[in-house]
């Protein structure tokens, strides 16, 4: 392997990329768009749920209960239902996502100390929102009664503290994880095409006629994409820090080194798929199925791995993004170093080496 030939392949690939203005523009525009959408449009916190209230008690206590629902910030009262109306109709008609029914004897029950029943009706057709709404309501209800009668509170009190992300902002969760998703997309879009394109266009024969070795081709082709990936990551980190205010507490150097490992793993995998399938259509689709989707669904980026069935949990073990998400969160939010992150770091190094090996092996210069 000579550096001169490797450099020549890299230059050729970079030139080709530079002339393909759209691909180049999108390689930078897509991450920016994703950051914008995930940073501004998306929040995992559910706020301002439409609450309809059926207050049959009409007492000071029932009004305070409704107030504590509103004050939580999670609910807004969109309708006060008349006494006679059927609570279910408000859900079925889509007027409200949640209906709170406070029965006539509410205040009496509350002051006498017997459990005061209240009823919550949820629109289960949106199970995600309904689960969260139920959860909020239970917490509000659990805290309401003791607050009404100071001194007679519950005998056990939980003091809660949240670490790493004190206000539980979903942005702080999303932005570090998003970097893994962005890198996977770059891999699926760019490297998955690079060798299949040469096969489809017949330029592979030209390449075969040159004295270039396969290690030189693979490394040379990787280089420009790694450069694009690095620029994207730097952009995402700066935007995350400055625009979205996500804290970056840990070591930048460690983040950079491990990001490079993840980049090499993802991009080499894309190249392996490309060389193995020799078709641009198949290669992007397979790359998307094996990098982007797992990074989105199986990495713990948004959805908790612990909640998955055993088979899927085992599958997540071979998803590099899973380890990378732990690393970015660890470095951004938890300020932990290699002493804690070494298993994940080792896994990433292994993936990078493995994917690179696969790319080298599958890439055969001789024409079949």
């Amino acid at each position, binding site marked *: 392997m000579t550096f001169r030939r490797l450099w020549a392949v890299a230059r050729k690939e970079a030139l080709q990329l530079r002339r393909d203005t759209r691909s180049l523009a999108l390689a930078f525009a897509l991450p920016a768009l994703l950051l914008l959408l995930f940073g501004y449009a998306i929040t995992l916190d559910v706020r301002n749920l439409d609450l309809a209230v059926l207050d049959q008690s009409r007492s000071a206590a029932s009004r305070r209960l409704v107030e504590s629902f509103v004050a939580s910030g999670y609910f807004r009262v969109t309708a006060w239902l008349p006494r006679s109306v059927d609570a279910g109709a408000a859900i079925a008609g889509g007027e409200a996502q949640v209906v709170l029914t406070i029965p006539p004897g509410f205040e009496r029950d509350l002051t006498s100390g017997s459990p005061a029943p209240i009823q919550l009706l949820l629109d289960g057709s949106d199970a995600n929102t309904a689960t969260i709404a139920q959860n909020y309501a239970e917490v509000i209800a659990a805290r309401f009664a003791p607050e009404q009668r100071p001194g007679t509170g519950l005998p056990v009190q939980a003091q809660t503290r949240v670490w790493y992300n004190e206000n539980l902002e979903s942005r702080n969760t999303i932005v570090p994880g998003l970097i893994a998703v962005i890198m996977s997309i770059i891999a699926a879009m760019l490297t998955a095409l690079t060798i299949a394109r040469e096969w489809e266009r017949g330029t592979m024969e030209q390449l075969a006629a040159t004295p270039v070795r396969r290690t030189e081709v693979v490394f040379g082709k990787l280089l420009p994409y790694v450069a694009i990936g690095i620029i994207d990551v730097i952009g995402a980190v700066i935007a995350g820090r400055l625009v979205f205010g996500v804290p970056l507490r840990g070591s930048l150097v460690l983040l950079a080194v491990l990001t490079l490992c993840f980049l090499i793993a993802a991009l080499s995998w894309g190249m392996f798929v490309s060389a193995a399938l020799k078709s641009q259509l198949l290669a992007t*689709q397979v790359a998307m199925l094996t990098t982007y989707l797992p990074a989105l669904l199986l990495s713990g980026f948004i959805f908790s791995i*612990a909640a998955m069935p055993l088979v899927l949990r085992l599958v997540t073990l071979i998803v590099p993004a899973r380890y990378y998400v732990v690393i970015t969160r660890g470095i951004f939010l938890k300020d932990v170093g290699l002493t804690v992150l070494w298993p994940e770091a080792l896994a990433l190094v292994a993936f990078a080496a493995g994917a690179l090996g696969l790319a080298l092996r599958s890439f055969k210069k001789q024409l079949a």
Partner: protein
Amino acid sequence: MSGRVLRVRELARKELTQLLRDVRTRMLIFVAPIIQLLLFGYAVRTDVPNTALWVVDHDRSVESRALIDAFTTTGYFENVGSSDRSSDLADALDAGRAVVGLEIPVGFARTLERREAAGVQLLVDGSQSNTATVALGYAVRIVSAFGRARAPAGIAVGTLDLRTRAWFNPTLESRIYNVPGVIALLILLMCLTLTALAIVREREFGTLDQLMVTPLRPGEFLLGKTVPVAVIALVDLAVISLVAIAWFDIPFRGSAFVLLPAGILFIVTGIALGLLISSVSRTQQEAFMTMFLVLLPSIILSGFFYPVGSMPLLFQWVTELNPVRHFLVVVRVVFLKGEGIATLWPHVGALTVIAAATMGAALWRLGRIGAGAR
């Protein structure tokens, strides 16, 4: 007249043959959607069972053990470790071995016995904010239920007895909500990929020129290219719906006669978007990139993962233009609520308008390109 039908049929047959000849493409068209359906069905959950709990029990009393049991018997928490040093808890949270830490102070049982308020400490890893929010809710509820059960007799402790019922999905299973939604994503993906590539590939390989010299007219060319895609998308719609119903036990409460027309409108929109992408792309690579640019925002802003109601107002308006959002509402309502066109007409209407507008734009763009070529 019959010549035209014949030409369209021949081209459609050639397209289908080309698509289905290759085992790998066949897998892609029919197996990949099933894999994705399984992934979404099993991976995407918002309820959080088995949250890893680390316990630091300084008290080691009957009462403290009862509280720990109260955590683990619910099924929401799994006790992954315990120790008597607070620093171990900090390490467990740092390393991600635990998500929630429960610390019970010395004298917990004695304080309870003296009928004074006993405090316990809950520590939560907030780096995964939605898991943390849900787990925190569970924990607070468990602690207050534990306290209520131990309230000394004779002293009135006001409690609220919250009774929850959920309509349409009584067990609040995420799957029942998510799986129908996947149908919309997969069909869009299929329509965009197959349409855009069917045309761009011919252009890239130069076989478009060969087609130009056949007696095929532009309209016939488009029909011949898109009809196979529509057929495949419809088959996918049926297959995915059947898998959702048969495998995932998703109820189908509505009518296929509402789902089918809405599905066709959505497929037409998808094909029109694919045509638009092909009209601005010279190579497959350009087509893929442009596809991503269309696909990602339309999924993120569809309400699939993230409820539209929680978005800022500006983005909520933007979602009105998004066909995926409207089709998602239709799919979910037809599957879960079973309501008909009487409630769904605004969304079906929006889909009609979007389908007509995108198809019009696509034909106009392609017409201009065709005129330029001549």
